[in-house]
C-alpha cells in the first residue's frame, strides 16, 4: 500500500507541478504586483496597499472598457445560446444535407479569431469589399469600425458567428440524450411542436445550458484577439475590452502593477459571476428535472 502511494504521487505530481508553477504561482504574483508600484523595469518597488485598486475605480478608461466587456459578454452569451439552441433543434435530424449544414455552422469555430478577423476587416473596412460593392450599386458607404457603436455591434456579431458552432454541438449532444419516450408521451398528449419544445426539449436541455452559458461567458470575458485585429481598441479607445486594456497597459506600456490590479479585478468579477451563474443554473436544473 505504501508503494501504491508512491506510484500515485509519481503519476499525479508532474502535471500538478506544471500547473502550480505556470498557473498558481503567476496568479499569486499578479495579486502581489497589484499591491505594489512596480513599473516592470526598475529594480525597486514598494508596497502601496490598495492604491492601484482605488485608482482603478476612478479610471474612466477602465470603466469604459468594463462597459464594453459587459455589453459584448452579456449580449454575446445570450445570443450565442439562443441561436445555438435554435439551430441545434433545427439540425437535430439525421441526413446528408443536415450533416452539410452542420459543417457550415461549425466551420468558423475551427479558424483562428485573428485570421478571420483580418478576413472580416478586408470585407468591412471603410475601403473594403462591402463598401466597394455598395458603391457599385450606387449606395452609400458604411462606416463600421470608425463609429464606436457600430464597431462594438459588429464585433459582437462576429463573436456570435464564430462561437455559435461550438454551442450547437453541445446542444446537439444534449438533444441526443433526451429519451424518446418523453417525445412519445408529449405526442400522445396531443402537444404541438412549440408545446413539445417548451415542455420537453427546453427543460431537458438544462444541464447543457448550464455548461454552455458558463463556457461562453468565461470565453467572451477575455475577448482580445478580434479587438486587436479589427479596431486595435479604437476609435480613441472606445472598443477596448478590459482584457485588451490590461494587455495594453501591462505589456505594451510599463504600467505593470496597475495592469496587474485591473487583471485581479477582472479575475474576481469573472469568478464571482461564474460562481453565481453556476449556482443559479444548477438550482434551475434541480427545479425542472
Amino acid at each position, binding site marked *: 500500500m505504501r508503494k501504491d502511494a508512491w506510484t500515485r504521487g509519481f503519476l499525479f505530481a508532474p502535471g500538478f507541478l506544471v500547473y502550480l508553477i505556470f498557473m498558481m504561482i503567476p496568479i499569486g*504574483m499578479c495579486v502581489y504586483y497589484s499591491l505594489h508600484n512596480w513599473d516592470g523595469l526598475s529594480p525597486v518597488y514598494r508596497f502601496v496597499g490598495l492604491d492601484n485598486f482605488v485608482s482603478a475605480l476612478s479610471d474612466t478608461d477602465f470603466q469604459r472598457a468594463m462597459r464594453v466587456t459587459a455589453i459584448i459578454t452579456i449580449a454575446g452569451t445570450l445570443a450565442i445560446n439562443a441561436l445555438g439552441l435554435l439551430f441545434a433543434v433545427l439540425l437535430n435530424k439525421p441526413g446528408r444535407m443536415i450533416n452539410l449544414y452542420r459543417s457550415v455552422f461549425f466551420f468558423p469555430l475551427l479558424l483562428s479569431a*485573428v*485570421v478571420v478577423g483580418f*478576413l472580416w476587416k478586408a470585407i468591412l473596412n471603410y475601403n473594403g469589399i462591402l463598401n466597394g460593392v455598395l458603391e457599385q450599386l450606387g449606395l452609400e458607404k458604411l462606416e463600421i469600425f470608425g463609429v464606436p457603436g457600430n464597431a462594438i455591434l459588429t464585433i459582437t456579431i462576429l463573436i456570435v458567428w464564430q462561437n455559435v458552432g461550438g454551442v450547437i454541438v*453541445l446542444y446537439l*449532444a444534449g438533444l441526443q440524450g433526451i429519451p424518446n419516450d418523453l417525445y412519445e408521451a408529449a405526442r400522445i398528449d396531443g402537444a404541438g411542436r412549440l408545446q413539445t419544445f417548451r415542455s420537453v426539449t427546453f427543460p431537458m436541455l438544462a444541464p447543457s445550458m448550464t455548461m454552455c452559458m458558463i463556457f461562453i461567458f468565461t470565453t467572451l470575458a477575455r475577448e482580445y484577439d478580434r479587438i486587436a485585429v479589427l479596431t486595435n481598441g479604437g476609435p480613441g479607445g472606445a472598443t477596448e475590452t478590459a482584457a485588451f486594456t*490590461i494587455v495594453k497597459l501591462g505589456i505594451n506600456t510599463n504600467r505593470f502593477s496597475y495592469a496587474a490590479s485591473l487583471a485581479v479585478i477582472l479575475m474576481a468579477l469573472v469568478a464571482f459571476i461564474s460562481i453565481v451563474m453556476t449556482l443559479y443554473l444548477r438550482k434551475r436544473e434541480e427545479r425542472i428535472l
Partner: protein
Amino acid sequence: MSERMANRLRHGFLMLLCLVLLVPFYIAVVNAFKPKDAIVSDPMGIPFAELTLRNFAEAAFTPTFNIFKAYGTTALITVASIVCLVALGSMMSYVLARTKHRFFTFAYLLLLGGMMIPPQVILIPIIKLLRALGLMFSETGLILYNTGWYIPFTAFIYTGFIRTISKELDESAMMEGANGFQIFWRIIFPILKPPTASVVIFLFLFVWNDFLNPLVLLGSTKGYTVTTGIYMAVGQYSTNWDEIFALVVLASLPVLIVFLLLQRYFVSGLADGAVKG
C-alpha cells in the same frame, strides 16, 4: 402545418442561411487568386482569365514572414504541447478519478477554478517567471506555459471519463502483480481513446489558433506562429487586401485539412468530451 411542409421550410431556411454564412469564405478564396485591381473593381466575380498565384507568392514569402516557417513553429508548439498535456493530464486524472482523499478533491477543485481565469492575469507575471527560468522568448517556455494553462481542461475531460471505467480492471491487474505505472500505461491508457480524441481535437484548435500567448511569450525576434506571424506581417493599417486574402487562405488550410481528415471524429469528439467530462 403538415410535417412535410415544415420539413421543406426548415431545409429552405437552413440552406439559405448556410449560403449566407459561406459568403465570407467565398470572398476570401476567390479574391486570393485575383490581382489587386480586379479585387477592387469586381470583388464578388471570378475573372477566369486573370486568376493568378502571385498573391500567395508575394504574401507568404517576404523577408519578415515565411509561411512554411510559421507552419513549422506552430506545428512544433502544437504537437509538443499536446503530447505533454495528454501524458501528464491522463496520468494525473487517473489519480484524481481513483483516489478518495481530501487532498485530491481539493486539487481537482483548484484545477477547475483555473478554467475560469482570464489569461491576462497569468500573462503579466509569466513574463517575469519565464525570464527567471531563462525560457522567455523560447518555444520551450511557451510549451510549458501551454501545458500549465490547458491542463485543467485536459484533466476535466479525462477525469470524467476515467470515473466511468470499472475499478475491477485495476484490481484484477493488481492481483497479477502489476504496479501502478504498469496498470496505468498498459491497461488504463489504451482504453482512453475516446477522451484522448476529444482532448487532442480541442487542444489542436486551441493551441494552433492561439494568438496572445505566442505574441507575448515567443515575441517577434525568436520566431512566429501562423497567427502572430500574419498579425505582424499585415499590421494594423494595411489595405493590401490581395495579400490578406491569400494569407487567410494559407493560414486556414492546415486546419481545414486536419478537419477533413478527422471529420468523423471532430463533432462526436467535441460533443463526447463535453458530455462525459
